[in-house]
């Protein structure tokens, strides 16, 4: 049972983390929340679904990520760049975009949930006393790999330093010669790719439908609040926490309330920490 809970928690945490990290990157750089991120997840899942019969599952994940990178460029141009300085409008624009994407998906793929089957679903490995499908292990493994790569990128690479510079203060970063537009684009591209991975990975574990990704996005929001907007490390930890809590809750309390628990926790956290668990900036000096 414990192993089961752990595995489930890690799977949930993995997809939440992939989505949340993308969101937190985008937020840190653009100061806007991407409400179309859930649809990025969904598109990634569908692309992988369509490509997998030809390239095999593992490569299809990569293809989905590349496709979504392109999607990210479009998203940045249409829903983010025009609204720098008017962030509320940007939020609403990404909402409008999400409606467009969901309905496009329904036109292309219909509304009936599809089953994304991969050969890995049928192979199991025994851990302790429990049989775990290889597919689920792949989900966990790939999540860890991607998140690790991203963490390395943000902490140690030049691009990562630029991300952090722009997140701190876009004006000063621009004055230092950083191309803020390029960094903005990069954040959305990376965010979309990670979302695609989340979709491609969770597609086989859940059913595939244009509504996919909404839950992941909502939980990712909770993770970001816990971990701090713009804070990659904190967000990953936040996602881990939420994934585990939901996994435990769905077994011991009830599945239908599991999301309420995540958000209930969130609200309680906000009551005691109105600035989030990880404070963003120093007190505003008046």
């Amino acid at each position: 049972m414990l192993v089961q809970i752990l595995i489930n928690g890690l799977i949930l945490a993995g997809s939440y983390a992939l989505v949340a990290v993308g969101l937190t990157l985008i937020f840190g750089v653009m100061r806007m929340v991407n409400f179309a991120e859930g649809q990025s997840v969904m598109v990634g899942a569908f692309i992988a679904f369509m490509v997998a019969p030809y390239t095999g599952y593992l490569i299809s994940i990569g293809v989905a990520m590349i496709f979504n990178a392109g999607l990210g460029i479009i998203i940045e141009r249409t829903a983010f760049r025009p609204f720098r300085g008017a962030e509320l409008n940007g939020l609403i624009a990404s909402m409008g975009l999400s409606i467009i994407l969901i309905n496009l998906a329904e036109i292309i793929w219909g509304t009936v949930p599809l089953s994304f089957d991969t050969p890995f679903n049928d192979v199991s490995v025994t851990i302790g006393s429990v049989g775990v499908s290889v597919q689920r292990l792949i989900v966990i493994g790939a999540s860890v790999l991607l998140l690790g790569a991203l963490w390395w990128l943000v902490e140690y690479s030049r691009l990562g330093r630029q991300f952090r510079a722009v997140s701190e203060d876009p004006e000063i970063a621009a004055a230092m010669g950083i191309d803020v537009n390029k960094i903005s684009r990069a954040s959305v591209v990376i965010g979309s790719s990670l979302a695609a991975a989340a979709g491609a990975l969770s597609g086989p574990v859940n059913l595939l439908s244009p509504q996919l990704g909404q839950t992941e996005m909502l939980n990712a929001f909770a993770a970001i609040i816990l971990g701090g907007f713009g804070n990659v490390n904190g967000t990953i930890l936040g996602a881990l926490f939420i994934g585990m809590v939901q996994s435990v809750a769905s077994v011991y309390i009830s599945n239908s309330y599991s999301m309420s628990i995540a958000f209930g926790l969130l609200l309680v956290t906000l009551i005691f920490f109105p600035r989030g668990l990880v404070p963003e900036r120093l007190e505003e000096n008046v």
Partner: protein
Amino acid sequence: MSDRKRSGGMLAGVSGGVAVSMATAATVAVVIVALLAAAPLMLDDYWINILVLGFISSIVVLSLNVLTGYTGLLSFGQAGFVGAGAYTYGVLSVWGVHPLLAAIAGVALALVLGLLLGLPAARLKGHYLAIGTLGFGVLMAQSLNNMVDVTRGPMGLLGIRSFGWSHQVWYWAGLAISLALVALLHWIEKRTFLGVILKSVKYDEISAMSSGIAVFAVKLGAFCASAALAGFAGVLFASYVRFLTPDLFTSADSFRYLMMTVVGGAASAGGGWIAALVLTALPEALRGFGETNLRLLIYGATVLCVLWFLPQGVGGVLETCSARWRRSRGGAAVSTAAANAVATASSSTKHPAPDQQRSETLS
């Protein structure tokens, strides 16, 4: 002495200039309202239905105007208040409570929820507020879904008592109530001290506090008022459609209301009203294009286009038009304003010179 005359003249000039433009704006508005009032006699039941739903949605949008447009507080969970009002009315009426009492209870419960949410939320800023309210909306939707004993959850709540109005009466009631609220909110925002207080909180909290405004109390009040309005819309909705399911009050619906608000111009009650009607009617009007998906696609694209090209929303367009109208009517003889000032100051109340107010052409 001249000081007093000047201020007296300015006072009169100000009210005079406003009176002139309001007279013409009022005539135009009356014509439009008359047309709308006559609509039930010209349109078929299907469109009457759409418009009633549009009026009800506009009340939710007005609640967002108060919260977001006037006070600067984001709410991504407004559907939660609507659902609370709707289900309270629905459940009580199914249990046999008189509709009026049930309606009052619905609004009251929504208001209490607004207070409960406002207590933590009024201390949150920006994106934390957005996501906190989103969480509230999700919690409400899930609770409505899970409290099956009370709400019958996904099976739906049937047999809700209506107010006993016919389709036409619903239309006129919806039109009258929504327009009355638009007028009330517009008056509060533009012409009262309360409007100035709200907007001071919206634009700069710290200086508002230093001016003696109890910012937290104002925000809490805004949450309560907004929740009560949304709950009222929910009560109307429940009484009109008489069948409720929890999936009518999800985050997607909260987003929809927020989109209408922003398209209308967050701070514009009139713009919000128009946007609510248009964005409710638009998907239906596009039925000619066939399936739901294409219609909603166009809906989303419309929202994006308005945001790209009309960032101030419909309300911004209204403002520009009325400002241009005012200028064209009183813009002459700015240079003679000084000469007029002394001469007209004494007779200011009779025939106010709109030119005296022309200092605003600076903006």
